[in-house]
């Protein structure tokens, strides 16, 4: 996954060659027809998460960017669904709000007004629902421009963590990251939990430490990030959530960076 949500869902030139758009109609701005999302506008960056012994820890910063402008500095990108599931979203923030405040709210309201099922909607169920939604929307060529992580646990109280993106692509794993996090954070997280078995021996403290370290790296290197983030721990007992601010920042390393801006050598 690419650092730039603008690039998501687009054919990569190095794979497909440059896109020949010559057959596409020229659209006059303001022509009165319904336009589907062709690119995200206000975007959130990475979401990262790690499974540990008895739960999942998930984090996302609070910035919503408008291109390179840090437009909104306090946007919650983690959503608690029901009592024991957390969904984290990157990508288009209006699509995220639609999913969080409309789709998921509706889902939970419908669930609580239906006859008792004795099997509450857990993370795997919410995840399946979202993945069908995102896939259905991409199939109508009207995608929800997001990458989502769903964290929680299954019926047997086993930690659950899985990902779905704007194309409906699904996968799970002991550590996941979307956006720029897939490049920078995931290698760090995979060092702690290379596989499913490893995650069963990791404590909450270890997992939290790894996630915090990864968030720090992301802040230093991802230009669309901010030094404040939301972090949540999901266990069968429920969700614990807090806000973190990156303290004691040091930009000394920046002096040694060569190749950008004025210091080109």
């Amino acid at each position, binding site marked *: 996954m690419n650092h730039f949500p603008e690039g998501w869902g687009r054919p990569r030139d190095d794979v497909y060659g440059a896109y020949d758009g010559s057959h596409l109609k020229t659209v006059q701005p303001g022509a009165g027809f319904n336009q589907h999302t062709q690119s995200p506008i206000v975007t959130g960056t990475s979401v990262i998460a790690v499974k540990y012994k008895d739960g999942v820890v998930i984090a996302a910063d609070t910035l919503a960017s408008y291109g390179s402008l840090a437009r909104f500095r306090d946007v919650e990108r983690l959503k608690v669904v029901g009592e024991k599931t957390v969904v984290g979203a990157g990508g288009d923030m209006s699509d995220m709000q639609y999913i969080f405040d409309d789709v998921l709210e509706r889902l939970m309201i419908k669930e609580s007004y239906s006859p008792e*099922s*004795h*099997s509450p909607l857990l993370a795997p169920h919410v*995840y*399946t*629902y979202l993945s*069908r939604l995102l896939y259905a929307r991409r199939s109508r060529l009207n995608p929800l421009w997001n990458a989502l992580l769903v964290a929680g646990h299954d019926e047997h109280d086993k930690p659950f963590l899985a990902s779905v993106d704007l194309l409906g692509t699904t996968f799970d794993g002991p550590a996941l990251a979307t956006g720029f996090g897939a490049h920078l954070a995931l290698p760090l997280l995979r060092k702690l939990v290379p596989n499913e078995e490893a995650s069963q021996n990791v404590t909450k403290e270890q997992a939290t430490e790894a996630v915090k370290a990864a968030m720090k790296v992301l802040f230093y290197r991802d230009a669309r990030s901010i030094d404040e983030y939301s972090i949540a721990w999901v266990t069968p007992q429920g969700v614990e959530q807090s806000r973190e601010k990156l303290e004691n920042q040091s930009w000394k390393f920046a002096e040694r960076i060569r190749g950008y801006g004025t210091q080109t050598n």
Partner: protein
Amino acid sequence: MFRNSYDNDSVTFSPQGRIFQVEYALEAIKQGSAAVGLVSKTHAVLVALKRNAEELGSYQKKIIGIDSHFGIALAGLAPDARVLSNFMRQQAMSSRLLYNRPIAIKRVVDSIAEKAQVNTQHYGRRPYGVGLLVAGVDKAGPHLWEFQPSGMVLEYKGAAIGARSQSARTYLERNFEEFENVDKDELIKHGLQALRDSLAQDKELTSANTSIAVVGVGEDFVLYDGDSVQVWLDKLGETRSSRRRAEEEPATTEATTTETTTETTTEGAAGSSTEGQTGPGGPAGPLDPAGENMDTTE
């Protein structure tokens, strides 16, 4: 000749507050052969008597598997049951597809109750002419529900619907306290014992006319039809009704004075109302202590 002017549609009450078309639909259930359902702590069982319209014809299907965790037994109009079972399958499948979660039994039963009720409130519609026993297992354990064309659904520990089902019900009423703690084999045996009591005088349970289905906690819905039923009939031993045995071997049989069934050969006449009798699937356990489940005005 008396003519009932309040039974031309399903949306008109009689002055007594009855909807005759709905009551006739309940009568249609009694035209169908018997089906019995019962539950223990771990299993839910359906047994049913199949009928063939004529000697050379095949037997009508009585038990239908819907999903791996539940199925139905029917009494009444089989085509109506098929429509309902198709709908239930859709519901069950969409639950799996959308949520990756097997549908809760009560939810799927409620969904067909809703459909049935709509038919009792729209002009030009006909109530379903079929009663169902829905047996399944969900997160809360095994369940047995009865569905009626009125839109009424009730949960039971044991229930029987269809022709001469009162005899089976009598058996269930006398024995239901045992059901809770018996194993799968015993529960099926109880079901067959209840079912055989609803046999016509000259009939007995055979592998051709008996269907058995069982579903348990951690066990998928299994349907025994045809040859596979014989194993269970062998375990049962006696395949005649207790009434017939009492007549044929009066000395040896224990006195099981089954009250004569309230079975009526209705022609859809208004006179044959269900007044004063416990309707199909009457109370077999304390789940319906008032025994008012037939009262569609409830």
